């Protein structure tokens, strides 16, 4: 590969609106079944917005994770634990292995689901003080990690919608530089009143099912979830004799440097992130068999991202789809949720459908609506573009061992 040590993926875990765990999520993708619907778990006055909620209450997840009732824990951390649990088991990592493992987590809301409930208590009395400690993002990552054992390094990335992708990139850099053999990387985010209202104030939420890349698209549907990849060096994977799911063959991070909430009209940051990822992987645009687009369904993103893809791929656009019309926009977790979806696509030979699309945009891409690919899937590109122009792209490759 282009830049030193290979970065292999030896496990993954996921929880999202379309399923709790890998097999439920895969089934939903193959059945084209959306997880977006009316709000059920979040207590908000904004019942008008369809969302992609994880179909478990906090207490159900606490039970599943064996958390003692009354222990201060947040929804974001709980989802992270569920996904981490699956990822570690998938990669055959036990508690005693973790002192060689780094954990890089992406989140932006952290413990805000509890903070917004107890904010007045935080100020006026001491009844909820234990939840002040769970507010910040770093504490969220520690809570997830501590549930499983002692990791050698824990840190948290918060770059809005590209957080999980950037976490994966840092993890890969750690492996390439020899700083770690194994890194669990990804992201987690629950829906909170704070950012539901925040996105509403920016007027970018669709009051109906979101329609990425559709001419009539009217905004995004918020989602929630968590997903982690277990990244591993080749030597470590061989030594442990574990199965390789796929390879992270390239990645790129670039800044749009245009505006804090809007993407540039020519999609410069997106173009650069994708270009860097391809260069890093030593691949040409024509090597890419599928793009999992950021595709939020906002007028701005989908146009900007279309421009960027057209600039890079010219007339030779591969099949492209956004899976956010199935999962909702899982914000900080989207990079890893969608990376897991890409791994499923590679290993099962299908191309996720751009659910709910009907009308071609004037200047946009025409997304994929067929599960069956034209040929073999070898390399896929996964895009995550965040507020503030924090743009990241990952290239995932099917490895020969798994054929």
């Amino acid at each position: 590969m282009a830049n030193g040590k290979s970065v292999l993926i030896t496990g993954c875990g996921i929880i999202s609106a379309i399923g709790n765990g890998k097999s439920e999520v895969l089934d939903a993708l193959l059945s084209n079944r959306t997880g977006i619907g009316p709000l059920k778990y979040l207590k908000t006055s904004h019942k008008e917005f369809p969302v992609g909620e994880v179909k478990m209450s906090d207490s159900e997840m606490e039970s599943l994770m064996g958390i003692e009732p009354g222990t201060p824990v947040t929804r974001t951390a709980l989802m992270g634990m569920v996904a981490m649990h699956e990822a570690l088991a998938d990669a055959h990592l036990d508690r005693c292995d973790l002192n060689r493992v780094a954990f890089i987590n992406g989140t932006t809301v952290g413990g805000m689901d509890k903070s917004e409930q107890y904010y007045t208590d935080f100020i006026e009395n001491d009844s909820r003080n234990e939840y002040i400690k769970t507010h910040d993002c770093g504490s969220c990552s520690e809570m997830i990690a501590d549930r499983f054992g002692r990791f050698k390094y824990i840190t948290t990335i918060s770059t809005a919608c590209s957080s999980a992708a950037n976490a994966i990139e840092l993890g890969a850099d750690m492996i390439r530089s020899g700083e770690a053999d194994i890194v669990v990387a990804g992201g987690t985010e629950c829906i909170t009143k704070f950012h539901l209202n925040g996105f509403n104030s920016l007027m970018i939420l669709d009051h109906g099912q979101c329609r990425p890349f559709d001419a009539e698209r009217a905004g995004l549907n918020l989602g929630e979830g968590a997903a982690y990849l277990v990244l591993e060096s080749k030597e470590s994977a061989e030594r442990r004799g574990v199965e390789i799911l796929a390879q992270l063959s390239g990645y790129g991070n670039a800044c749009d440097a245009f505006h804090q909430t809007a993407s540039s009209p020519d999609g410069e940051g997106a173009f650069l992130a994708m270009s860097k990822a391809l260069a890093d992987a030593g691949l040409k645009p024509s090597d890419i068999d599928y793009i999992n687009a950021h595709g939020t369904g906002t007028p701005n993103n989908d146009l900007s991202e279309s421009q960027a893809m057209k600039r890079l791929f010219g007339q030779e656009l591969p099949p492209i789809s956004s899976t956010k019309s199935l999962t909702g926009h899982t914000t900080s977790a989207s990079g890893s949720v969608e990376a897991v979806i890409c791994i499923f696509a590679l290993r099962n030979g299908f191309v996720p459908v751009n659910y709910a699309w009907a009308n071609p945009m004037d200047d946009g891409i025409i997304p994929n609506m067929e599960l069956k690919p034209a040929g073999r899937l070898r390399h896929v590109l996964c895009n995550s573009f965040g507020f503030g122009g924090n743009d990241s792209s990952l290239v995932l490759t099917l490895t020969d061992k798994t054929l």
Partner: protein
Amino acid sequence: MEEMILKLKQEIIEVLNLEDVKPEDIDNDAPLFGEGLGLDSIDALELIVLMEKNYGIKLQDPAKGKEIFKSINVMADYIQKNRTR
């Protein structure tokens, strides 16, 4: 109307935190967006909130804001015709 326009200018200056701008600096017919005051899409969203909070006018479509916020006079006229507070 003049009183309302002065009040509107003061509200805009406050909500958009235009520290160095006084009401007399804002020409009633000058464009608010692009040139003139040089406001942008985020400012438009803030003005939508201002319209609802201070005048009870709810704008569902952010794109409509472009026409209504063309200038102080256009905005004042729209408020006069549609206010519920």
